[in-house]
């Protein structure tokens, strides 16, 4: 049967030692007749050493990690067993440590047995993939090579001892290590083990200590003018780490700006407050029957009868549960923030859509604005504008403006070159091109942007209640503080209805336009 030999030849060539076994297995795999429970006995015993000899680094990693985890659990078992003995006078600790010690030894056994079974089950099934790669590219590892054992030894020597050591010791806490650093500074003797533990198995060590910077304050001088005053740190006060230093620098910077440019922030605050007053007077200052009627009418005109029914039901919910004024308060904030977002976002979006350079500059800024958790925006808002509605609106604007810019730019960029060319061919100047061709064609995308802005504003306005922006969010924060679950749930549902209401109306209005 020479043809059979022909078929087996590449397998034998690839596998080298023990080739017949692999030829059989690979043939079965190719014919899809390999038993589901087939295990490689050599791999079962040899584990990652076998994988290394065969040059399969994926299997090596799997086998190595399985055995390492088992070993670590053994180490943990001994660590807690010893701890139980050390704390023999405290019964509750003994009980706890013995429990842990026991569960770790069980885990070690289970992981070792199941892991080895899994490994030997995977072994041939992954090894055949290596064979397939080797068929395409003959430089892929094949056969068995003792040289690879060297790598195994080095890797094991580098990884295993620290891992096991870490598992068998209780790690020192950060404060202990800081104290120890200072003790070393004073020239005291510290045992090598304690130093090593702080360096290698706790928090990442503080590599350098920095001298405490000057304290900065801004008192008034005799003329009532603000001045910058630096107070050097007290003699002998301990040094600080990088985090403390930079955080303080940031605080100093913010403090400086708020003290010397306060007029700027006051002006912005005043502007926002004025705007908000106008909007609030519409929503809150109007008697509820009028507002409700107008809202229903707008919903009907923009989105049809079904949405109007939904809007009506939601409004009744808000009214019946006593959320009317608060909801209108929230709506005013949302409208104010959305208007600012559109006023800023639309021109920026057009600019980004038209200029490659603007895109290059603005896109990373937008990415940052969108990835920073929304809570973080509250901090600078408070720092510059203290608490209340204006900083709430500003934090909301920062959070909600990016989609406006992005979607406007997208819409502008989507306008086909052919259409623009046609407009140019008929003598359109750049302004006409923008207003008569690009903006109208980008309108669906721009409207989607506005929709996003409104929704994101609503979610941020709720969070902004934390800094005193009031509205529905305030009820929720209050409920959170006093664990009034019922009140919180009712307000939460109210917010959800508010959001869905706005979303439905704006989206339907969008679709209708198309």
């Amino acid at each position: 049967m020479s043809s059979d030999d022909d078929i087996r030849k590449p397998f034998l060539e690839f596998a080298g030692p023990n080739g017949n076994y692999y030829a059989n297995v690979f043939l079965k795999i190719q014919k899809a007749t390999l038993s589901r429970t087939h295990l490689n006995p050599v791999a079962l015993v040899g584990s990652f050493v076998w994988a290394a000899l065969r040059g399969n680094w994926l299997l090596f990693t799997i086998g190595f990690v399985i055995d390492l985890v088992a070993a670590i659990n053994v180490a943990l078992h001994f660590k807690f067993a010893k701890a139980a003995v050390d704390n023999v006078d405290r019964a509750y600790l003994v009980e706890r440590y013995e429990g842990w010690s026991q569960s770790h030894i069980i885990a070690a056994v289970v992981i070792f047995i199941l892991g080895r079974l899994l490994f030997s089950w995977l072994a041939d099934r992954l090894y055949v993939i290596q064979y397939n790669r080797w068929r395409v590219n003959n430089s892929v590892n094949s056969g068995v090579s003792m040289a690879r054992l060297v790598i195994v030894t080095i890797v094991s020597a580098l990884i295993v001892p620290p891992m096991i050591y870490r598992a068998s010791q209780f790690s020192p806490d950060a404060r202990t290590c800081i104290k120890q650093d200072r003790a070393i500074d004073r020239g005291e003797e510290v045992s090598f083990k304690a130093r090593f533990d702080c360096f290698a198995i706790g928090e990442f060590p503080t590599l350098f200590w920095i001298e405490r910077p000057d304290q900065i304050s801004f008192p008034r001088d005799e003329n009532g003018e603000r001045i910058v005053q630096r107070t050097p740190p007290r003699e002998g006060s301990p040094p600080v780490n990088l985090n403390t230093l930079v955080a303080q620098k940031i605080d100093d910077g913010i403090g400086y700006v708020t003290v010397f440019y306060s007029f700027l922030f006051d002006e912005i605050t005043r502007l926002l407050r004025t705007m908000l007053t106008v909007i609030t007077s519409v929503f809150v200052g109007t008697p509820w029957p009028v507002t409700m009627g107008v809202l229903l009418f707008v919903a009907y005109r923009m989105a049809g009868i079904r949405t109007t029914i939904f809007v009506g039901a939601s409004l009744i919910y808000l009214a019946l549960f006593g959320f009317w004024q608060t909801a209108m308060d929230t709506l005013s904030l949302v409208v104010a923030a959305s208007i600012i977002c559109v006023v800023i976002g639309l021109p920026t979006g057009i600019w980004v859509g038209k200029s490659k350079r603007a895109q290059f500059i603005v896109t990373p800024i937008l990415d940052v604005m969108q990835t920073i958790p929304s809570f973080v925006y509250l901090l600078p808002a408070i720092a510059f504008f203290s608490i209340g509605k204006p900083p709430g609106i500003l934090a909301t604007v920062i959070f909600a403006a990016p989609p406006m810019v992005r979607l406007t730019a997208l819409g502008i960029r989507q306008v086909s070159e052919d259409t623009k060319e046609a407009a140019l061919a008929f003598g359109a100047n750049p302004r006409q091109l923008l207003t008569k061709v690009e903006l109208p064609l980008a309108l669906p995308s721009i409207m989607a942007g506005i929709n996003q802005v409104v929704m994101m504003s609503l979610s941020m306005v709720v969070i902004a209640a934390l800094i005193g922006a009031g509205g529905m969010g305030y009820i929720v924060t209050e409920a959170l503080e006093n664990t009034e679950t019922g009140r919180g749930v009712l307000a939460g549902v109210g917010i959800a209805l508010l959001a869905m209401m706005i979303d439905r109306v704006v989206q339907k209005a969008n679709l209708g336009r198309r």
Partner: protein
Amino acid sequence: MTDSNCANVVETRNVWKIFGDRADEALEAVRRDSLSKDEVLERFDAVVGVRDVSISAGAGEIFCIMGLSGSGKSTLVRHINRLIEPTAGEILVNGVNVGALKPEELLAMRAESIGMVFQNMALLPHRTVRDNIAFALELRNVDIFTRNNVADKVIELVSLKGYGDRYPSELSGGMQQRVGLARALAADPDILLMDEPFSALDPLIRRGLQDEFLELSASMKKTTLFITHDLDEAIRMGSRIAIMKDGEIVQTGTPEEIVTKPADDYVADFVAGISKLRLVYAHTVMINIEEFESEGSKLPAIEECPWAHPEDDLDKLIGLAVNQENPVIIMDDSTPVGVVTKDALLRGIQGET
């Protein structure tokens, strides 16, 4: 057919267009070493769009530019209204150098004296048919009343009456292209640039639109640069045809000249499949009477022979020659000037004269 005496309305002089960052460098090298399109692409990473093209179209003429896709037709025609700036050479429209126009003048020229029709129509989907048509007028700040009036007239002209308030998406392809044509005509320009206007349409609709356009053109007499990749269409529409290949003009001439005397194998290949019946005329296939007789044949009595004018086409000659032993006599002002035998007729149909 061409009135070579009338002033050239559109003229390009040695226009070159090379796309790419190193266009000027490439241009110099091409001029010096006459590199091919591929060599330029390889050496300068630049694409030769138009290569030393000089054409001129007279008033009222339909000047066809024919070539395969990628041969530079669109690029060339976009130089006329300066949607594309030439790398070298100049473009004259009504004797004015387009490259020297100030921005305001250029916009005025585009809006008022040049209309353009595009293969993909490029209508504005958010505007009604009427507003699309009135677009050029709107850009010039013509008042709404006037431009609606003008638009309605043009709508009638392209047989779209009653569709003024529809949106382009509600119209079929053929009707959309009528809107495209109407938009180009609305400002009553002297010049029409038509970039494969009918290429995207079904053959039947295309045929109809071609006829309609020919009719319109005959009455409006606008100088038209008509681009097509279809020689049949070029022959139907054009009073003259320029054939482009790799950015170059390989031959310019009347349809008959192109068909009967192709300048090179490239043109000959194109022409091979074309029906000559309406393109070749008696004066091309006839032989002189003396020559006829010197070959030993005897001319029958003239009264017994069918006769035709020198400008009659093969189609007519075939009609005369069937059921007839005698050759066709060609008479110019009642004096016989030549003879067309059946052999000559057959050769003529084949295209070999």
